[in-house]
């Protein structure tokens, strides 16, 4: 009983410690240069897609295992690790991934030159 209690206490402490840090990371904003002409741009962990007048920021991490997608083949994003494919709307076109790319909340700066990504 006492052992369980001690373990529980340490798990609690550990969770607090790490979750606090995760919270801090989550609050970090990322700012990348933005160019309306670029129909698709890869910025580290974010893919920015311009279609018509709509700009969408997707997480560049494949929903299968989190590998970072950094290229297109034809009009699809292709994951280098296991070949999952997504269309420009982030929709899965070929597995093993089965969930669509995560859309990240984003806004474009007033001068139109940068895009701000909130985690």
């Amino acid at each position: 009983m006492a052992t369980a209690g001690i373990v529980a206490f340490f798990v609690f402490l550990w969770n607090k410690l790490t979750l606090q840090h995760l919270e801090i990371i989550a609050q970090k904003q990322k700012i990348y240069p933005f160019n309306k002409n670029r129909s698709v741009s890869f910025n580290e962990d974010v893919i920015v897609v311009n279609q018509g007048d709509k700009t969408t920021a997707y997480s560049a991490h494949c929903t299968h295992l989190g590998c970072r997608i950094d290229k297109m083949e034809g009009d699809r994003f292709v994951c280098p690790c296991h070949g999952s494919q997504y269309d420009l709307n982030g929709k899965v076109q070929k597995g093993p991934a089965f969930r669509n790319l995560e859309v990240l909340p984003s806004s474009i700066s007033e001068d139109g030159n940068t895009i701000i990504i909130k985690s």
Partner: protein
Amino acid sequence: MARKRNKTTFGTVALAMFWLVVASGVVLAIPFDVKDPYLSISSMMVVNPWASLLRNFHYWSSQFFLIFSLIHLYDHFHYKTKIGLKAGIAFRLSLSLLIIFLAMITGFLLKGDADSQQARQILQTLAERIPLIGQSLAYSLLGDPESYQLIYVHHIATFTVFIAIAMVEHGRKYWPPVIDFVLSTAGVFMLSYFLSAPLHDNLNPAVKGPWYFVGFQEILHWLKHPAWSLLIFLGVLVLVYLATVSKERIMFLSKRSLLIYVGFYTGLTLTGLFFRGENWQWMTPWSQEYRYSVLQNFRTPRVDFSPDFELAEAVTSPIIQGRKESCLACHTGTHGFTDSHKAEAIGCISCHGGNAFATDKNQSHRNMILIPGNLTDSRQSCGTTQCHPEIAERVPTGLMATLSGMISVDRFVFNEQENPDLLATVHELGNSPADQHLKNLCVRCHLGNPKTELGPVNEFSRGGGCLACHLNYSEEAEEELANNRKGDLIKAHPEISLNVSNNHCFGCHSRSGRISTNYEGWHETTLLASEMPDSANYRLIEEERVFIKQPADVHHELGLECIDCHHSYELMGDGNHYAHEEDQQDVQCSDCHIDGNPRTITAEKLDDESAIIAALRFGNIDGKEFLVTEKHNRALINTIVENDSIFLLTKNSGKKMIIKAPAAACTRDNAHSSLTCSSCHTAWAPTCIGCHNEYDSNEPGYDMIKNLEQRGTWVEYIGEYNAKLPTLGIRKTEEKTEIIPVIPGMIMTIDLASFTGKENDATIFHRLYAPAAPHTTSSKGRTCTSCHNNPVALGYGEGELDYIVENGKGHWEFKPLYAADKNDGLPADAWVDFLQTRNDKVSTRSNVFPFSVEQQQRILTAGACLTCHEENSSVMQKSLKDFDILLTSRSEKCVLPEWQEFP
């Protein structure tokens, strides 16, 4: 007992390896920089051979520690008796198996290269998906995504200490026998000298985990919910535990299960290592990309303690995309690049491949691409992920790479296919008579034909992938190449740039339709070089073809080059396969010479490629407005719409000129609304008639696909070459029917039996005209009579076309210049018989036809008027509005032609 303790076992070798790993790790910490691991490791490999050797030592000792630990485990398992460890030790030992893998994988992550970054993502995702504690566990294991600090701490401390304790606890000793140490150290040193630890060049798109997890990567590839794969780990650990503590049946089953698992996993590992390439796609050793996608993963250069360069050069050489490249230690002072292709910006391996981390010349140059940009390797050079991948993918789909029209029409002419508009590619040529004909005589001009020799693009050049258009030698570069002795370092590098000149197009496009020479005002004759008169009106091309001066295209006179009209999506393909050039070709005269409101696009709405090209060529394009093509809706980035005027900027020289609207005559009436601009404004077109093809099995020939000489070839016997106003024909598409210029494309005979050897194969005869874009535009259109009263324009061929009025009745007569062909009775140069309709196989397209008899009659009726009335007379001007009404009010002197009813 003492002897037994000092006996060498797999366990003691593993122990020896462990201490070697620890010792080398401590020393490796000196040159290693956890803030920038990739740079620090690439620097070690390039600049610091001793540090590199040490890293290799750390790597190889750790790999063998893992291998010997596993063999040690197997060694204990394969006895049938129970091992009989206490539960506590067995638990900690089983757990330490996991910890060994964690120590190994964290070492792998600490390379910081492309492989490591993806492996880190996978590890993080897997950890995060463990219920309840996933997030915390992932963070505790890997720390802040932008830092390697926590991974480093776990690697050198947490996991290492755990392994050390578990080893000493169950082995009850700290040190292995001395001999184990000595042999392990020597063996690992040898290996470390010859085989470097891997480091990804961050360019190759194939990424793989460490060899011991490649099988796991294969499993992950099959799983939709990869987190379940963690149960495999758990299962293995439980089996190891059970095999260690249990007895009899459970022990036996555990061991047997582990054995099956190991066999299965070995198969998966071999699959992952040798049969998986880019995007984890299946790849066989005979695939063209196998070397690049799979074998490159195994590159392990030797440590070179006396590299061919000064270490000081290597130390000061620039950092390229986060890494050091050994190339730049030898190749210093290389110049001649555009800004974006400077060695300081993209290094050498981005284009040339090779091994950036080897320091020996031969090893650095192994698998190097001396001439990058050929389509076979463009995905590894110009088309790598960071550079122009989408273009490298598009170019092979374009007509200049597929030659679809050329191939399809040739097969059609050889009666091998009924339709000249099928899609074809040069890579699929077989051995049919047509395909052999193509291989002997035609298919040298395609972008995929590789450039194999250094030097500038000139009139002899064919193909060369990206270089075909983008390679430019400065005078200095050309001189240095000419004076280069084998082994000299070349400092003046040719430029890869947007400066695509007419000369780049010339090699291929001075042939067949000859648009390059037409454009500059040169017409090919059948004269031999020895017969060429010494006059500025003649020009010798490729040392044997004699050209004579003709009027140049008005756009050429104004200083426009090929690329001033043709944009990147036409020239490099737009990703679609097209059957013929007129389908892929986008720009039309009316896109620039506008009657009415221009179609435009603003700079901020440009597609990425157009915007980049525009900015590179013309600087700041903010707020600018450009014309857009009607056909494919592409921006013409060298046009500017300002106020009410449209300007054109020449792409290479930046010369600004106003674009004129079409003349009133072009747009004012209905009579000629179906004429394309070029049907009036073509000054001349090259024509040839009467060509014969036969196969000569003794003649030395050439296979243009294999680029090899061979015995036996198709031989073409040419007829006459002429330059004249083109014939006109009808093109019917779903959208419109229009009148276009055509030329006698293939009035020819083919001796099929000479190739097949079958006497029954009849000689093929064709009388086909081809749609033409002669590129000989004149600002003034052709005259009315040059069409309405001209037998060549109407498709009858050369001859006398006269309007005869006798006894108040009029009729047209035609006396051909050329004798009737024995094959079809038509004059040698004709397309259609006088006042006849001709259908069926008449042109090199399924939608192009000569004028029907009704259309000829209508044209000739106006022609009859023109025999009396001047072109600019008010009557003829009126005729343009409504010819039929005008005819009803004609005077008695006007005699209209009467048409004989032909059977």
